[in-house]
């Protein structure tokens, strides 16, 4: 394998990990409520921008990262309390509009709180590239991959071993049955927004040193995360991870070997093909047909 191919694979896996983290957020909220949260991308933006601001005030990096995740989680919980949770029996179109409205609102607020400029966040361990099989990899890429693996392990522990995690999983399989055994599904929905927002913010903090951040980064990252979630099968956690990685790799290889201008087109053409022929995603989770 040539150095160029390794290079494309490395950048594909890095972007794919970020998409996977965003897609996990989509699936967690979808499982709790059947809502597609179009504001998921804004959590990524809030994470990156908060970290930049906190670092600028002189806070050490680890505290800034935790603070950014905390700020996004609070915004996520508020979004559930003040908007999504209030439209309980609304149909899908209504819920889609509410979350799109929330994303525009949050972007507008970000523009007021921060600014319209592009910001850089310092990498976690310098920016001296590492030579690897003929490719040069920035250390931050390794942080992205490592953190994603850590998140996947932590999440699988959370869903298998903790009461709240088990309650969330049970609600996703059958909300009525979950309620009958005493699970407070309102609490589950609330927690889902906090968890999804935290994951989005982590993705935003991790990617900010590589692609920079601004009040607008949430739009494309959110759409790509949604695409990754659909690709792997909406509501499936393994699907979200596989979908994210496949999407990242395809984009990176497409941009490298076909056309970088059409990189985003490739991603969405793939989504349309999957939707037409395998609407349940490549791993197949929830039925898309609903009467």
């Amino acid at each position, binding site marked *: 394998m040539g150095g160029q191919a390794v290079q494309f694979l490395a950048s594909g896996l890095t972007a794919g990990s970020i998409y996977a983290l965003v897609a996990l957020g989509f699936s967690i909220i979808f499982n709790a409520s059947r809502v597609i949260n179009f504001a998921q991308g804004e959590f990524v933006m809030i994470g990156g921008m908060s970290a930049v601001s906190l670092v600028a005030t002189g806070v050490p990096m680890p505290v800034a990262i935790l603070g950014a995740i905390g700020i996004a989680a609070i915004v996520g919980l508020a979004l559930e309390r003040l908007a999504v949770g209030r439209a309980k029996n609304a149909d*899908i179109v209504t819920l889609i509009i509410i979350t799109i*409205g929330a994303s525009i609102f949050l972007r507008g607020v970000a523009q007021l709180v921060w600014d319209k400029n592009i910001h850089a966040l310092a990498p976690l361990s310098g920016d001296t590239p590492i030579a690897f099989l003929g490719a040069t990899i920035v250390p931050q890429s390794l942080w992205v991959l490592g953190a994603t693996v850590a998140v996947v392990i932590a999440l699988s522990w959370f869903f298998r071993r903790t009461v709240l995690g088990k309650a969330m999983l049970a609600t996703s399989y059958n909300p009525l049955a979950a309620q009958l055994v005493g699970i407070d599904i309102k609490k589950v929905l609330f927690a889902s927004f906090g968890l999804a927002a935290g994951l989005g913010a982590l993705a935003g903090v991790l990617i900010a040193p590589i692609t920079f951040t601004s009040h607008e980064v949430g739009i494309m990252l959110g759409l790509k995360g949604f695409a990754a979630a659909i690709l792997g099968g*909406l509501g499936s956690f393994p699907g979200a991870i596989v979908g994210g990685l496949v999407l990242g790799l395809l984009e990176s290889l497409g941009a490298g070997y076909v056309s970088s*201008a059409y990189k985003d*087109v490739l991603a*969405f053409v793939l989504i349309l093909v999957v939707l037409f022929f395998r609407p349940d995603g490549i791993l197949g989770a929830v039925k898309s047909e609903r009467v």
Partner: protein
Amino acid sequence: MESLAQSRASGSEAPTLPASPRVAPRLRGLAVLALVLALLPFALVNAYFYDVAILVCLNAIVCVGLNLLIGYAGQISLGHAGFFGLGAYGSALLAANWGVPPFAALLLATAAVSLLAFVVGRPILRLKGNYLAMATLGLGIIIAIVLANEDGVTGALHGSEVAAEVVGVDSAGQKVMVFVLSAAFAAAAGGLTAFYSGFITPSKASFMHSVELVTMVVFGGMASTFGAVVGAAVLTVLPQALTVVKEYEMVVLGAVMMVTMIFFPRGAVPTLAARFGRRSR
């Protein structure tokens, strides 16, 4: 809708038109709209107001078409700005580069976009809810990126597709026809916009523009043609009014979307109409 139409027809205003009570209010509404449009140019005191009014009309065309899809057929599209953009670029290129007369260019571009919508309509409309949202969104983004890089109609459809099919409505075919029709409206409005403003940018085909169009429809009120026009008017004028406080434009737009959907999920016009109707009864 129907009960409203009937209550208005049998109201105390004693309709002078002898037509059937179902048709009369609709014709009356159309007459009022025509009158308003005919008199509006005299009321608009300067070129700026005139310009905004034309923008409202152009958006209203798209919204009336999109409302057929969202309100009556119960399907969402997050990609209609793509059709708008294709109509605009198609018309403009045909007229500018091929010397096609503007009106013919508009018709040709609209026909071509309708054909595209017809081809992609059937596989796309097999999908529902969130999957349909993703597919139309993807289609819209593909069109927008391509543009950027290359400098039956029955109310029964929304209620329940199964019920509509049981009473003999070919819901798949109807949905595709409504989809094509709404795409044609968007393309025609796009073409008109291109000729009116004399230039066109890929942002008109963007995801954000698709979202704005859907917002206009749901704000005014789904399954209400009048509502779609009101939605287009309010959400076209609002950003113009907010240019004074440009920074707050997005915050206000997002808040309007959320508040409308949470408190008036049926939209502003049907909600107000229901309230007004109740009081007068």
